[in-house]
């Protein structure tokens, strides 16, 4: 998933006070216009986090005390937290960033899910699944007690069972070229017929031809509760892929009736543990427990109450004031400058947890834009980044310098492999830039580095800008854009001339295989290939890895691909592997995993302790 990197809202209060005092007609009478423009604005920030796989958190989901019914009615068990940005969508088909994923995870069930501890794929909507002998046909058997539910006002309306047809409709809608789903590339690498359908030219095809393509996709409902997927090649990670939002059942009747508006409160039809009650765009979201969910009696937290707060420092203040129960995804962890204080503080340090998170922070070069089309220039810029200093002095969250794109914890990763990647080497950086024809940076045209608006990104970008200046003697122009505009600028089919030379981006694991990184992001056809890395040799390797069944051979193919990506071509400069940096109040039992797929319905709050701590 794309890391929620947000930009932040600018709140501008503009007061224009114009006082015109006009005097009488005497020559020296002053006539004064007083104009004061007063501007107050607040900025954003971002903290991104985490990596790695091993985590020992005891999962205790047993709800013991049942609150007195009268008291509960008056005061439901409420989880208070914040979102760091407005979720761009709540439509599973259109979801691509971490904030939307987080909310979708609470509202929509998938066939499968991840175990928080082991990250193994476990059943959710599916009770079990069978694989054909050749590994290309997956049959999922679904539970029959999941229901579509709509929340109208305070009334919970049941709208029938969740069936295999809903699953098939979901994936077909995601793939449909008219939906223009940002993640449509992902299933095309595995599902039969998906590529043909997703990349069909709708203007050139008749309705019948399009329908034929739709019917050709390897997703079929065998009966009401059995769904079958046919793959192009065996893919052991396929059950993990079905946990993604794009494979989730979607309510066809509602979508047909309301179109784009179907995700609004009052209209949206969901099937998960929580229901959307309020969505004040740009202001807050409120979710309430779904009483009709099959495991509803296991869910303790009844209300999720979350304003949208664009600044990490504001989030930190709210946490320290006891207004929110945790600081971390989908909101903000502690701001970078507060890390030292948090670690030294006797209370905050006990509430701090630094855990793995499967994401990589990288600077992409637009490989098709001069002078970044010269691999020597790209290498020089990558050699000149002192990743360890960045982490030690600025990030301070136990991040690890990245030598590869795929992060540790993912099958096929080569994180830490000394033969992969370019590490900080100022001498080589200068030499390489000279070899490219720009000794001491002379003759290099102005280079633009673009980031999405966020305090943390700006700090990291300025640090690296200073490193490039010091090592390469290159003045890089730093530019910021708001997140949605930023994604539009970087889209593979946007004109290169509008793109920056270098940009920041992050990628987080959707499933634990390097295919999710090297193929889903960097294959020439990928809709996430922002770096415009178009390398037939690389494409061939990742395609070969898709059909290869021997894990050792696959791992080696991915290693070769990483070497092309980072060493030979240097299409990007990976910066660091994330960690997940969270503050959690002691009364909240919060179970997290390195994928940031939080299962809030498994969390518990010691409600009495929270009331005592917050004075409710």
């Amino acid at each position, binding site marked *: 998933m794309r890391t929620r990197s947000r930009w932040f809202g*600018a709140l*501008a209060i*503009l007061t224009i006070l*114009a006082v015109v005092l006009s*005097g009488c*007609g*005497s*020559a*020296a*009478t*002053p*006539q*004064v*216009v*007083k*104009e*004061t*423009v*007063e*501007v107050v*604005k*607040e*900025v954003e*920030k971002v903290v991104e986090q985490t990596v790695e796989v091993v985590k020992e958190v005891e999962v205790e989901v047993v709800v013991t005390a049942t609150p007195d019914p009268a008291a509960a009615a008056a005061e439901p068990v409420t989880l208070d937290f914040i979102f760091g940005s407005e979720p761009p969508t709540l439509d599973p088909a259109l979801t691509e960033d971490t904030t939307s994923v987080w909310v979708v995870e609470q509202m929509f069930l998938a066939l499968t899910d991840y175990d928080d501890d082991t990250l193994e794929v476990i059943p959710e909507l599916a009770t079990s699944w069978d694989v054909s002998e050749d590994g290309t046909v997956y049959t999922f058997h679904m539970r029959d007690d999941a229901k579509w539910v709509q929340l109208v006002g305070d009334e919970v309306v049941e709208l029938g069972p969740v069936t295999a047809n809903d699953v098939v409709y979901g994936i077909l809608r995601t793939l449909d070229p008219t939906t223009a789903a940002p993640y449509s590339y992902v299933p095309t690498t595995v599902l039969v017929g998906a590529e043909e359908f997703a990349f069909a030219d709708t203007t050139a095809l008749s309705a019948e031809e399009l329908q034929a393509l739709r019917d050709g996709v390897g997703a079929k409902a065998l009966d009401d509760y059995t769904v079958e997927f046919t793959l192009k090649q065996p893919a052991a990670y396929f059950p993990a892929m079905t946990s993604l939002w794009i494979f989730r059942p979607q309510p066809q009747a509602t979508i047909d009736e309301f179109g784009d508006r179907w995700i609004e409160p009052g209209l949206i039809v969901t099937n998960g543990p929580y229901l959307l009650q309020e969505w004040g765009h740009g202001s807050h979201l409120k979710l309430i427990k779904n009483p009709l969910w099959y495991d509803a009696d296991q869910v303790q937290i009844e209300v999720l109450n979350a304003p949208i707060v664009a*600044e*990490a*420092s504001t989030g*930190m203040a709210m946490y*320290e004031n006891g207004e929110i129960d945790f600081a971390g995804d989908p909101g903000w962890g502690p*701001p*970078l*400058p*507060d890390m*030292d*204080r948090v670690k030294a503080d006797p209370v905050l340090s006990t509430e701090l947890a630094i855990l793995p998170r499967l994401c990589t922070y990288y600077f992409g070069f637009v490989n098709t834009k*001069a002078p970044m089309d010269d691999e020597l220039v790209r290498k020089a810029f990558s050699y000149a980044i002192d990743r360890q200093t960045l982490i*030690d*002095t*600025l990030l301070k969250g136990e991040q690890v310098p990245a030598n590869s794109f795929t992060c540790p914890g993912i099958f096929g990763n080569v994180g830490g492999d000394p033969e992969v990647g370019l590490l900080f080497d100022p001498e080589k950086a200068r030499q390489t830039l000279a070899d490219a024809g720009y000794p001491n940076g002379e003759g290099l*045209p*102005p280079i*633009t580095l673009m980031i999405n*608006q966020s*305090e*943390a990104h*700006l*700090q990291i970008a*300025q*640090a690296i*800008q*200073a490193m490039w200046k*010091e090592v390469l003697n290159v003045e890089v*122009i*730093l*530019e*910021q854009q708001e997140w949605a505009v930023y994604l539009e600028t970087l889209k593979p089919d946007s004109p290169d*001339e*509008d*793109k920056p*030379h270098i940009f920041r981006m992050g990628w987080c694991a959707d499933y634990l295989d390097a295919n999710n990184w090297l193929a889903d992001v960097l294959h020439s056809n990928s809709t996430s290939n922002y770096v415009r890395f178009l390398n037939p040799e690389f494409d061939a390797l990742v395609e070969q890895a898709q059909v290869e069944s021997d894990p050792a051979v696959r791992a080696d193919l991915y290693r070769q691909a990483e070497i092309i990506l980072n060493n030979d071509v240097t299409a990007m400069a990976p910066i660091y592997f994330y960690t997940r940096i969270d503050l959690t109040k002691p009364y909240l039992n919060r179970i997290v995993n390195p994928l940031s797929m939080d299962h809030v319905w498994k969390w518990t709050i010691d409600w009495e302790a929270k009331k005592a701590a917050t004075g409710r």
Partner: protein
Amino acid sequence: MAVQQLDVQQVFAERAQRRQRSPFAEAFSQLIRNRVAAAAGVFIILLIVMAISADLIAPYGFDETHFADNYTLPGDAYPLGADYLGRDILSRTIYGARVSLSVAFIAAGVSLFVGLVYGIVAGYAGGWVDNIMMRVVDFLYGLPVLIVVILMQVYFKAVSRRAEITGVLKTLVDIDNSLGGLFFVFVALGLLNWIGMARIARGQVLSLKEREFVEAARAIGVTTPRVLFRHLLPNILGPCIVSETLAIPGYIMTEAFLSYIGLGANPPTPSWGIMINEGFQGIRSYPHIILVPAAALTLTVLAFNFLGDGLRDAFDPRMRT
């Protein structure tokens, strides 16, 4: 009789002497009697000197990083502390004065010049010319300055990313980069803030052009441009300068605001707005990072306001004692 005559002569002589002092000299003597305004003036002069000699007095370069020393509290090595990249806050604040003051004076200069010329011509011409010119002003008055500035910044930043730009655009972009990304802030502020000035100048000219000294000048055949700029301009300059001085805090705040939201100066140009933005995130752990540029900005804005108020009083004959 003789004694009386002497008195009359003396009175006239005194009056003549007083007239010899220009309105500006008169105003200046008024101004320095106003202690707050005088102090503000001195502060601004010191600020200007500091900005001009930043290279000599700043202990470090504005973009000189010392990663190992980041977040250092004020002390021997860094008199006012170091920021998150280990850059000296004192040095950046000193260089930041350059940004704020150049925005202030360039925007004020452009707006004063354009507004005066436009207002004088409109007011003096009168009739339909005046009518059309002032309707143009009314129209421009409806444009929100901030939004226009933001659009210009966004547009020219997009233009500057294009590798193949040539000609005038290339020149503009080069100028912009050499000014740390502030060129179009200057341009937009100057171009949109003259309208207030034009109204003041026109109002003044309307009230003056029927006066005897203008009639007299015209009667003896003085050319129109000479009437405008020799006879009318000096008489309206005072109030216009007062008004412009009072507008300067607005320019400074606008630049700081734009830089704060990332649409003004390009980092690492040390605009106070950028520095405040950078300090904001760490405000709970390292308040010194935001305090220094915020204090500098506040004091500068305050000084220009006090100076403007002082100038207004100084030019006001009714305030004279």
